[in-house]
């Protein structure tokens, strides 16, 4: 049994920053990560076992990563008395159990491990990150349709290009690195279809200017789009995907100012073999709800953790940093991770720099304003249901169609997302609603009604934060067994 002052879950920008900062303040830290090497989705990179000089190619804030990584490796071999990090890679947390005043994290075993790993810590910083939000569209179950983040993960980790002719569609600034990454890797990107009009940015110049590095990024992307002749089409959406056994073409449509599909504009189909979709991000809330922390709905209608201005949740000893407090990008996540670590260190009785705390709090406030402006400029368009058909699959795991969801509401009297799920099964399958949850929750309500915590929270609660086998569960040690 291992005892730690702090367990950090997730080794992306927020978690790495939290773990390193906490250990540098003298805490004994366990850094638990599903990946085989630190970096998370944002800094996913080729296998470090086979070092290559260009490992940072296509990355952003890469020097922040290499700095954190160097400090992490130093802290892995530091003396326990002065603060140390134990990196627990390749393990997912599948259950959190209360352990005295602290927490016990139950981890999935990796091949060859006979004892199930468990990490006990007095406090937790949860940095689970998020994944691409998806919306259903006719044909999206065809091979060749991918999440934008999945396309990028293949590029970053394996330098592998998921298709030869691609359309990158959805909304938000994340479409840009995916499109330019594909083009740099040799794919032809026939268009970026951005549903937003971006006029929102101009209306809130102060918010957009709050984070100067973002303006710089925009200039870099503009140059790359020009270099690769990638058309950036605003108020444009993919309305259907065609193909017999795989993607062959997509239909596109134009939105009006209110985000509804224009019927007076007809655009030609695009021949593609890859569609990369991203409609913003969905934070992973499993561990936040598992520890009993309260949640709220953010500007982008994502369920996120409630934190105070020290990244504390309302559960003593549980802190959250990064996308799970509100999607806002890597810079914000790094700052939040650092602040969460300072808060945890201070709460554990360690001295921390008040000036650092205030600097981080200001930086986070700026980052939040920027994120809110970004979300307002890139909303899910009001008309996203306009191009669905009754036979469009909404839940790909359970093959639930829009028509079946409508029947659950109209015929059977389901009045909320949970009841629709119980009666028509969207979100009941393999991914447990991680992909279709947002869309299914929207479809369970009258068109145009905003989602509330009571819509999203029941769907985000998952007993098992990761799938676990019957054998693992049957042999799991639990806190009720006493000391082992």
């Amino acid at each position, binding site marked *: 049994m291992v005892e730690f002052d702090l367990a950090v879950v997730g080794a992306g920008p927020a978690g790495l920053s939290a773990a390193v900062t906490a250990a540098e303040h003298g805490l004994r830290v366990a850094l638990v990560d599903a990946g085989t090497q630190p970096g998370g989705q944002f800094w996913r990179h080729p296998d470090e076992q086979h070092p290559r000089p260009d490992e940072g190619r296509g990355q952003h804030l890469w020097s922040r990563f290499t700095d954190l990584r160097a400090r992490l490796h130093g802290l892995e071999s530091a003396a326990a008395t002065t603060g140390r990090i134990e990196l627990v890679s390749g393990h997912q947390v599948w259950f959190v159990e209360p352990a005295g005043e602290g927490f016990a994290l139950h981890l999935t075993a990796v091949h060859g491990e006979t004892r199930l790993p468990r990490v006990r810590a007095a406090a937790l910083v949860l940095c689970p990150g998020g994944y691409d939000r998806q919306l259903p569209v006719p044909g999206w179950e065809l091979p060749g349709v991918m999440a934008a983040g999945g396309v990028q993960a293949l590029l970053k980790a394996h330098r592998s290009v998921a298709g030869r002719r691609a359309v990158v569609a959805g909304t938000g600034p994340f479409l840009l690195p995916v499109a330019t990454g594909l083009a740099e890797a040799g794919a032809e990107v026939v268009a970026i279809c951005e549903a937003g009009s971006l006029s929102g940015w101009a209306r809130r110049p102060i918010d957009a200017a709050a984070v100067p590095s973002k303006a710089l990024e925009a200039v870099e992307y503009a140059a790359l789009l020009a270099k690769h002749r990638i058309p950036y089409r605003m108020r444009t959406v993919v309305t259907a995907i065609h193909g017999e056994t795989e993607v062959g073409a997509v239909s596109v449509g134009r939105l009006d100012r209110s985000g509804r599909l224009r019927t007076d504009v007809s655009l030609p189909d695009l021949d593609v073999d890859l569609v990369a979709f991203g409609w913003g991000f969905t934070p992973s809330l499993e561990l936040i709800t598992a520890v009993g922390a309260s949640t709220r709905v953010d500007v982008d209608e994502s369920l996120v953790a409630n934190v105070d201005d020290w990244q504390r949740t309302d559960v003593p000893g549980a802190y959250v940093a990064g996308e799970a407090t509100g999607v806002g990008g890597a810079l914000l996540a790094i700052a939040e991770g650092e602040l969460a670590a300072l808060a945890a260190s201070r709460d554990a009785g360690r001295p921390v720099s008040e000036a650092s705390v205030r600097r981080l709090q200001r930086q986070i406030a700026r980052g939040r304003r920027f994120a809110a402006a970004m979300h307002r400029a890139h909303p899910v368009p009001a008309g996203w249901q306009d191009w669905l058909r009754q036979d469009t699959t909404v839940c790909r795991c359970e093959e639930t169609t829009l028509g079946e969801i409508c029947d659950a509401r109209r015929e059977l009297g389901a009045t909320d997302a949970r009841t629709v799920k119980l009666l028509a*099964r969207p979100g009941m399958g393999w991914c447990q609603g991680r992909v279709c949850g947002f869309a299914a929750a929207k479809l369970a309500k009258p068109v145009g009604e905003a989602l509330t915590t009571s819509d999203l929270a029941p769907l985000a609660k998952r007993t098992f934060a990761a799938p676990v086998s019957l054998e693992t569960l049957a042999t799991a040690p639990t806190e009720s067994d006493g000391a082992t």
Partner: protein
Amino acid sequence: MPGTHPDVVVIGAGALGAATAWFATRAGLTVEVVERGSIVSGTTSACEGNLLVSDKEAGPELDLALLSHQLWRGELGEFGGLWEFEEKGGLVVAATAGGMAGLTELTERQRAAGIDVREVAADEIHDFEPHLTPDLAGAAFYPQDCQVQPMLMAAHLLRLARELGARVRTGTTVTGFLRDGDRVTGVRTDRGDIAAGHVVNAAGTWAGELAALAGVEVPVLPRRGFILVTEPLPPTVFHKVYAGEYVASTQSSDEGLQTSTVIEGTRAGTVLIGSSRERVGFDRTVSLPALREIAGKALALYPGLAPVALMRTYLGFRPYCPDHLPVIGTDPRAPGLAHVAGHEGAGIGLSVGSAKLLVEAMTGATPTIDITPFRPERFSLQEVS
């Protein structure tokens, strides 16, 4: 809600409320169902949908189960497809010779009471369930054991009742009762009063609290249970399979954690693995020791399930009464009020028989079977005569 004056207000839109709404509308009554949450949002959405005769001994609950079985196959038979009704049969297995001796004694009593049950020798078990462990002493097969998808069942019964004129109001909380002396003449809700000839308490695990609002004691208490749900699998478990100790545990009144194995496949391909029983009030904390014990016992029966992934769990609160019998009938302590609740883990299967008996009692029809063992006032020290 001005202007509505139904014959019956049913409180609760779970399995019992839905079945009551259906039988009452079929009997020609006007019905309004009020539900504080959404339809099928309570225990109905956290259970397996068992219609078992195999776990019953001769007595009033078995009579109710046999009546319900008749209704599921008869009057409601035409709708079976809507709620995935399946007469798959139950297989009760015994691990030891001693356990098999006990099971044989039970089956003899059950056969005498009218249950169709066949003994299965150890070497025949494989023909029923090829993936069961070979280390079993024997089994008993109950062809009458059935399964429904409980949420679809309740939702469709409510829909059928609505098609006959019933109204269903969700998001409506009963805050009190309209009274005329002792008599209950309707309900007060957070959305207005509803006057009615009869008020039916079908509030499931919360029926005791609701009865208290009317000033009568109906001791319905929560008994927490978990069910594990696997990833979808090719057909693996063909019947309701459970361990012989299950019957004992349903009748037990122990406080602590008890688990006994019940395993079945569903139409969706998932395998449901139960069961646990704990008296912990309405505590919704997920208990790893309970989940672990359920998993361990399931693997003892189906070792091949070891690598199968679990996707989720159900957590529900069975409504139980101290004598393990449900409460069904009109309440002489508060005329106008009736109850149909407290079926513990058998409410889905027994819902239709219970609702039919209750509607007979409310309309003065001759009861199909004796309803007095279920009378709501039986827990009072001095029963009202």
